[in-house]
């Protein structure tokens, strides 16, 4: 019981912005707004919002590995793809009955984690770090994209599931909850919205606890100075590997939810563009903080979608400009910069009033 309570205390700490009653009141307010939002909107728009939420998990995975851990990984989209395809292959073969879609979700995420464990073992225990880690993960991602792209022929099938090359895999069943009056199928609508929102809240709070724990301390210590961290007796390879695997699982969750949302996944979800976009969201938001990452990701994604109406090429150029601006003005992230600026103003106001 005491151990359980101490978990709650870890919701706040040096590794995460936001503490005290004011922050949690704001959190509750935002959550209440998110819960009430479908009541004031239509199913289509709500479904569209789910699409934004889907990407937050992969953004959080990058925040974890890159922002907190200090290792830039281009491999997140590979894990996204592995889990997405994994879900498709499993559910197309075994269907959606008896709640199997949920087992498929877990298995697919587990698959991404397993691949990350193998790749991560090779990288971290081989002491590959810095730029080389970026290169290796990018190579794996692009290789996977190339491989999936050439699977158009009918011989590329796993059981009933055709891989379908560049056209991608489709028609996998959505998440389905078995129910007495007949199964509840979660199409991209209000039902899926609540499920994904619940996952988002759990993952966000879970990561806050993890990063403010002793484990999180070691992760940021490795980012700051790996040699010093090792010289305090930490086997840093183990910590890096675990972080990488957790990150891969989160990216995989994004992949499954993406596939579930559109009942569709293609190799381009692992391509160069797909691999760089999450980097931009996370860099713009503020990679070293979970909250800033979420706000940044949602803001940039909405902006991106608004611009896409005028043509996706403009939107991509805008992304590039945004990244350059961030690097020049607020290298730690625009959202994080603004939050820190407001915090400073408020504390100054308070100390002046005192």
């Amino acid at each position, binding site marked *: 019981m005491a151990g359980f309570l101490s978990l709650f205390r870890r919701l706040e700490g040096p590794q995460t912005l936001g503490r005290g009653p004011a922050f949690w009141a704001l959190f509750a307010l935002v959550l209440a707004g998110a819960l009430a939002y479908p009541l004031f909107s239509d199913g289509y728009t709500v479904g569209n919002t789910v699409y934004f939420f889907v990407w937050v998990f992969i953004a959080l995975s990058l925040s974890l590995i890159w922002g907190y851990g200090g290792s830039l990984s281009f491999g997140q989209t590979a894990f996204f793809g592995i889990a997405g395809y994994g879900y498709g292959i499993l559910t197309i073969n075994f269907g959606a009955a008896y709640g199997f879609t949920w087992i498929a979700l877990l298995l697919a995420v587990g698959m991404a984690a397993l691949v990350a464990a193998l790749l991560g073992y090779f990288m971290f225990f081989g002491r590959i770090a810095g730029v080389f880690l970026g290169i290796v993960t990018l190579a794996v991602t692009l290789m996977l994209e190339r491989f999936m792209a050439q699977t158009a022929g009918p011989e590329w099938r796993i059981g009933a599931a055709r891989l379908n090359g560049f056209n991608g895999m489709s028609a996998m069943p959505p998440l389905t909850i078995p129910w007495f009056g007949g199964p509840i199928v979660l199409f991209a609508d209000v039902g899926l919205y609540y499920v994904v929102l619940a996952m988002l809240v759990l993952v966000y709070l879970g990561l806050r606890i993890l990063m403010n724990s*002793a484990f999180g*301390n070691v992760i940021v210590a490795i*980012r700051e100075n790996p040699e010093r961290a090792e*010289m*305090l*007796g930490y086997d840093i390879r183990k910590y890096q590997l675990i972080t990488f695997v957790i990150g891969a699982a989160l990216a995989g969750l994004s992949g499954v939810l993406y596939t579930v949302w559109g009942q569709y996944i293609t190799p381009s979800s692992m391509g160069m563009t797909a691999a760089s976009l999450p980097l931009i969201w996370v860099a713009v938001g503020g990679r070293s903080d979970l909250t800033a990452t979420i706000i940044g990701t949602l803001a940039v994604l909405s902006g991106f979608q608004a611009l896409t109406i005028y043509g996706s090429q403009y939107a991509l150029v805008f992304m590039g400009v945004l990244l350059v601006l961030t690097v020049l003005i607020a290298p730690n992230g625009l959202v994080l910069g603004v939050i820190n600026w407001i915090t400073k103003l408020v504390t100054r106001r308070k100390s002046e009033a005192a």
Partner: protein
Amino acid sequence: MALLQLRDVNKHFGGLHVTNSVNLVLEQGEIHCLIGPNGAGKSTLFRLILGEHHPGSGQIYFAGEDITTLKSFARIRRGLSVKFQVPGVFKGLSVRQNLEIALQSRLHGAALDQEIERLLAFLNLEAEQAQLAGNLSHGQKQWLEIGMAIALKPRLLLLDEPTAGMSPEETHMTGEMVRRLNAAGMTVLAIEHDMAFVRQVAQRVTVLHLGQVFAQGSIDEIVADERVAAIYLGQAHA
């Protein structure tokens, strides 16, 4: 009993013979100073002891165990600890968190907080505890890293130029601290240029020159040794 023993340790960097058949015995409970001109191979010897470099030949024993092939973190867990020449504090984290990370594998909860407070007071960093370690002065960074090194409660503390950048008073305080830790049972091996500090703490001194053990003895014997004076003078002329 020998706590640390180096047997015929050799290390080459390309054609450079940085550590040349070094034999060194550190007795349990002593304060031992390692001196020698710049480039003599003192820091390299520390990195060999810590497992950051691996010797081309020779063995390293710690508390009777051959640790020559052990990984660094495993050596630390057996009771070694180090303060590097260039302070490697976690610059982007607060002073307090730096200490917490050093202490957390040994202490938890209230005991952890108490020990952090004690160390902050001991290091004279109470006022700076919320600051980022990167914003400390050079001397304060040295103190903080010494604090992190002793937080592990090591059996053998390695200090690489602990007083560099400190004022004479601070140097003296550091010396007193080392003696107090030693009195409590900690064995210390310190690389130091400041002869006042060496005189203050050292029970035995080893002179390293061109990667070789050049002389060994009490501080008075070393200071009286004309050959030792010559290598320092030689360097001054070079």
